[in-house]
């Protein structure tokens, strides 16, 4: 269930499903789509099942539209079903596929993206901070600016105050922990809105796990007070310059930062009628 041949089948399936649903009028409507769905899925899977090709590690996984330009890869996925610790006799256990994130976009970005990027670059050039923007990613109609962490406050100030940018509303910061993204394990993601221009962008900063410091933006967006506290609480990201960086959701004396990937989910096995189900993070699962 990967790679190219699948997509052709999918198109056919989609076309066929659409045709059939048009001329179908029987009363058993609710049950029919499910049946077809399964049949078609069956066909499409057996179609690819025969041509077992091992995708090379740099090949994009299923569903990712053919990426243009460079791709950012974060680690690899082993096997097809993600099981570990049990004997995978399917023969797919040796598969290795890359985790590929959307690539950096090339100019022109299209639409208002160019206006925003242009205005920001202009401001940065006048202050000799041209390398503050590491890359720009456009994916699914959303634009993300990857900003060098030491320049974050300056960039945020520009984004807020420049009249062509005017991102006056910050919806908060969210942390993401990528343990496999060596040297940039911890990311802080800010969602900014310009109510003046009705635009929305995302600013992303990354920092190594060994030095989890990011300049605080509370002085620019006071709303980030609790959001930065939450991100510190959950990821251990230290926002330098925050007025009172304490935990906000977990108890003050809690050890560790729960949203990090190396922090276990916890839980106990549940017993029911003699059987025992392990906690969710220890169950056999797909990846």
């Amino acid at each position, binding site marked *: 269930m990967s790679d190219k041949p699948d997509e052709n089948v999918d198109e056919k399936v989609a076309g066929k499903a659409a045709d059939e649903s048009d001329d179908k009028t029987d009363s*058993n409507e609710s049950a029919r*789509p499910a049946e077809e769905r399964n049949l078609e*899925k*069956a066909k499409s899977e057996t179609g690819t099942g025969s041509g077992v090709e091992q995708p090379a590690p740099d090949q994009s996984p299923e569903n990712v*539209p053919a990426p243009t330009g460079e791709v950012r890869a974060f680690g690899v996925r082993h096997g097809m079903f993600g099981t570990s610790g049990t004997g995978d006799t399917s023969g797919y256990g040796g598969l290795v596929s890359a985790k590929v994130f959307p690539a950096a976009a090339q100019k022109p970005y299209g639409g208002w993206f160019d206006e925003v990027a242009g205005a920001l670059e202009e401001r940065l050039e006048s202050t000799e901070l041209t390398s503050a923007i590491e890359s720009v990613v456009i994916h699914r109609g959303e634009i993300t600016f990857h900003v060098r962490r030491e320049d974050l406050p300056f960039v945020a100030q520009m984004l807020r105050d420049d009249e062509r940018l005017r991102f006056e509303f910050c919806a908060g910061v969210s942390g993401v922990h990528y343990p496999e993204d060596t040297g940039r394990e911890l990311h802080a993601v800010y969602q900014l809105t310009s109510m003046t221009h009705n635009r929305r962008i995302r600013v992303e900063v990354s920092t190594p796990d060994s030095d989890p410091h990011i300049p605080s933006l509370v002085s620019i967006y006071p709303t980030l007070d609790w959001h930065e506290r939450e991100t510190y609480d959950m990821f251990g990201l230290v926002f330098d310059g925050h007025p009172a960086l304490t935990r906000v959701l977990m108890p003050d004396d809690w050890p560790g930062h729960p949203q990090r990937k190396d922090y276990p989910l916890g839980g106990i096995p549940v017993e029911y009628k003699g059987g025992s189900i392990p906690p969710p993070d220890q169950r056999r699962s797909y990846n």
Partner: protein
Amino acid sequence: MTTEQDFYAAPGDTSQGKVFTVSGQDWDSITQSIGESAEERVVVNMGPQHPSTHGVLRLILELEGETVTEARCGVGYLHTGIEKNMEYRSWVQGVTFCTRMDYLSPFFNEATYVLGVERLLDIEDDIPEKAQVMRVLLMELNRISSHLVAIATGGMEIGALTVMTIGFRERELVLDLFELITGLRMNHAFIRPGGVAQDLPPGALDEIRDFIVLMKKRLPEYAALCNANPIFKGRLEGVGHLDLAGCMALGLTGPVLRSTGYAWDLRKTQPYSGYEDYDFEVQTWDTCDSYGRFRIRLNEMWESLKIVEQAVDRLAGLEGAPVMVGDKKIAWPSQLAIGSDGMGNSLDHIRHIMGESMEALIHHFKLVTEGFRVPAGQAYVPIESPRGELGAHVVSDGGTRPFRAHFRDPSFTNLQATSVMSEGGMVADVIVAIASIDPVMGGVDR
């Protein structure tokens, strides 16, 4: 009880000064000993268990007499690690978790998460019309029920108990509709990636139409009871003041932002789920205070009712249309049907997978156990919840589970305004100010 030692202070806390522990029926001795002491400044811990703090919110108030000089919030008492848990479940199962966050607006939690997942799947344009309309219908009914609770509890906290009883009476009607449509009064997990879980049951549209007729009779009761009520106005007007600059700086959205006169409503400014096709007005007020927020909520219920009416009319013309995306790799295979023993899997579906098609069984099994894969990337699709901008930052690494799901909950953000809204005012106004924010601790703490 008056001592020099604070039994409730944690090790390391300051326990200097006189400590008063109120344990019931000892008010006289407390007031007497406070009167004896020369200190004017008192620090009061309100909550976390207090009927007027909307759940488990802890307020730390520093008082000079009855004037609040400093107000701080303590949150986190309801933290259940929903975001962490979602990372260990499939994309579809995630809905079951996030619906429990802000328990007064479950459909909004589901919708913002599902919209993010759909954007990553790139199927936003493939969602069937009926699913879109049903989502709007449920969200607007939910807005009514949520605003009813906001008004009801807000009224109760200032002593207007009738507002509470009639508020919950009407909310019950909405919950009955939810039960009819989704099977549950809350924790629905009804909006799924690709559409909604189930078609409307027979007779649902008639029930909703009856509800609309009834609400049109009952909503004016709130206006008659409160709008010009001198006590009500006296308690609300000018309380919890926050102007547009304050809202922008502190990131407040929803009724609080609209009470400054700024008509920012994501349903209009950045429409999703087909909101651009509905006729409604964004409600604003220009007083920046609790009274304005109350009136906005009241007016928004009327607007929601208008949207519900339009949605019902559209649904009447969509009978039998699909409620799930056509892509067989995403749509949940199992269909539900009502049997003699209640709701369960449709017998037709079970007959098909168990008796007719081995492949169908395999693929039912694969979708239910493994789920679908979502292309790597991140998405943020905010929606206008009853409390403001609610958004899910959804990150996928291309796997069958969310790599990270973070919810930007409006209650969490808006609660930061507590100190700005209540410092310098009377201690009784703290309650009114917080009620006007309408925080739901399930959403704050997640």
